[in-house]
């Protein structure tokens, strides 16, 4: 039979597999064909079709024996920030040229344990630093959604390849990572769902580190239910990650259809920014109305330090990045550019191996951590971070979840925001505070703007309350009934 993966969700594909409507080998073959047809999007860095076929075959054998796991036979693609054993892992950086990990990240190992099939490795911003997927050494990813006049748009970032793969319909689900919005913002710009779990919920072991106190991995999918399914498989305690939290993983599907009756949803007035896009504002109002109609109580809340989240982030994240990226020295793996002595070899390797945005962040990080400036910048930012977290703690005494827009704009043309780094940083204004406070955040596609481009709404939850987020997200999803799809212009 002929399968169009773009019409499937993880849940519906699992049903099809269970009812023997198709095998994982057939489904995987259809995804491989769609992936190869989508090359103009540049969403993949490495395709692994042979590995996918092998895994699909093994999955069909398991299913035949009645041993199918939670995601058995489902083709997924992996952000190229997760180490995958024996498969090139680049972080979209020149400096990791030829790096083939000899180990598998815990998060992906959990997916394979659940029976999922790997299609390949997804493009991203270099070291996940960016909001448009334009900093990748492997070139920008193109959003499957195009502008009114056919202009090419960015998919958002840093998980831009991830979002594009799901929106284009060749992967049923993907992994992303989110340090300041890198799952939620591209999900919004590509019209898909993505969840950044609570810090500590998904193991960071084997994921290339950017800013260790902010990084968190999560799923990106077509539906809220699919995100719940994937998160179920990815989450869990891992002794190999010292910040992994030893808490049981609840059943994320159990109360997914529980609705929002009697729940209190907070609306932070500080998120209503000066000069806010009118369509974004209208969608936010619509989101409030949907939840109210479904029985929730809408509550005005204050998050007074919101304005300082981005500046604090642009101290903390580069500081941690400069420290994490010190390991790339040309000695043990990746690129080596020779020099007359050891120091020159380091400098040549790092000067050539890192792109511009990564170098900027290493420079800022090195500066704010240097003697004499540490307290003025780094300690100050960590104090502000404490205040931002307190804001949320106070708000969550009164509400069950918080509703905001995901991003301040829809997808924008390539090159539109690359002249000034700060202009690009502003794309994460609504998502960054969530990382600073370690909270879970979910983006749900909620509508199209006047140019026919998707917009997302963000839900922010209490620590480890992903189940609540998914449940409120499911209500939003039902109300929004977002069924629009990009036209497959990339198929010649």
């Amino acid at each position, binding site marked *: 039979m002929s399968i169009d993966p773009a019409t499937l969700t993880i849940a519906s594909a699992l049903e099809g597999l269970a009812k023997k409507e198709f095998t994982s080998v057939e489904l995987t073959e259809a995804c491989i064909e769609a992936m190869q047809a989508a090359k103009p999007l540049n969403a993949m860095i490495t395709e692994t079709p042979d590995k996918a076929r092998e895994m699909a075959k093994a999955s069909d054998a398991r299913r035949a024996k009645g041993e199918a796991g939670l995601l058995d036979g489902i083709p997924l693609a992996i952000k190229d920030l997760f180490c995958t054993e024996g498969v090139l892992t680049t972080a979209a950086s020149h400096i990791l040229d030829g790096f083939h990990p000899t180990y598998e990240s815990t998060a992906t190992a959990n997916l394979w344990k659940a029976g999922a099939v790997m299609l390949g490795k997804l493009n991203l911003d270099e070291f996940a630093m960016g909001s448009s997927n334009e900093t990748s050494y492997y070139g920008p990813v193109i959003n499957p959604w195009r502008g009114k006049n056919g202009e090419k748009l960015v998919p958002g970032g840093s998980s831009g390849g991830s979002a594009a793969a799901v929106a284009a319909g060749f992967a049923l689900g993907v992994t992303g990572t989110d340090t300041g919005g890198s799952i939620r913002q591209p999900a919004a710009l590509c019209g898909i769902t993505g969840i950044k779990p609570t810090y500590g919920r998904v193991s960071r072991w084997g994921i290339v580190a950017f800013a260790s106190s902010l990084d968190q991995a999560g799923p990106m999918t077509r539906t809220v239910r699919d995100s719940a399914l994937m998160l179920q498989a990815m989450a869990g305690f891992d002794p190999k990650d010292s910040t992994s939290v030893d808490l049981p993983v609840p059943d994320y599907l159990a109360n997914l259809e529980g609705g929002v009756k009697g729940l209190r949803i907070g609306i932070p007035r500080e998120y209503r920014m000066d000069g806010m896009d009118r369509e974004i504002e209208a969608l936010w109002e619509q989101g409030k109305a949907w939840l109210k109609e479904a029985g929730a109580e809408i509550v005005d809340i204050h998050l007074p330090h919101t304005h*300082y989240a981005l500046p604090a982030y642009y101290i903390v994240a580069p500081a941690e990045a400069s420290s994490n990226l010190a390991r790339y020295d040309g000695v043990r793996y990746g690129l080596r550019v020779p020099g007359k002595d050891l120091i020159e070899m380091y*400098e040549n390797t790092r000067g050539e191996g890192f792109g511009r945005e990564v170098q900027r962040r290493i420079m800022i990080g090195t500066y704010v951590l240097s003697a004499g400036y540490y307290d003025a910048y780094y300690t100050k930012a960590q104090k502000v971070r404490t*205040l931002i977290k307190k804001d949320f703690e106070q708000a969550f005494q009164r509400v069950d979840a918080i509703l905001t827009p995901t991003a301040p704009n829809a997808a924008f043309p390539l090159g539109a925001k690359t002249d000034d780094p700060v202009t690009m940083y502003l794309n994460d204004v609504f998502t960054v505070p969530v990382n600073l406070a370690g909270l879970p955040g979910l983006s749900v596609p909620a509508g199209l703007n006047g140019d026919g481009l998707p917009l997302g709404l963000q839900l922010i939850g209490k620590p480890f309350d992903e189940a609540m987020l998914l449940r409120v997200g499911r209500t939003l999803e039902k109300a929004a009934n977002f069924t629009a799809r990009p036209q497959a212009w990339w198929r010649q």
Partner: protein
Amino acid sequence: MSLDRTAVAKIAKLARLKMEPERLDAMTSELNRILSFVEELQAVNTENVEPMTSVMPMKLRMRDDVVTDGGNAEAVLKNAPQRQGDFYTVPKVVE
């Protein structure tokens, strides 16, 4: 605070990043743009506020002080840009 070209060259040296002179000029203005953006933080009153050390309240776990891994020289060296036997090789450090 604003950085001049000499300061930026020094930071590049500390960060072990080779930077061509023309790149140094662009980097100087980009860094100053970012620093003026983060300068806003100085307006926040942080008196008696503790700097965050852990975003989730948790104690670092202890484990028994025993060897749990090792003896994988081949795996460790697999991605080495240059090696000799079980060693990474680098330009001469000691004369």
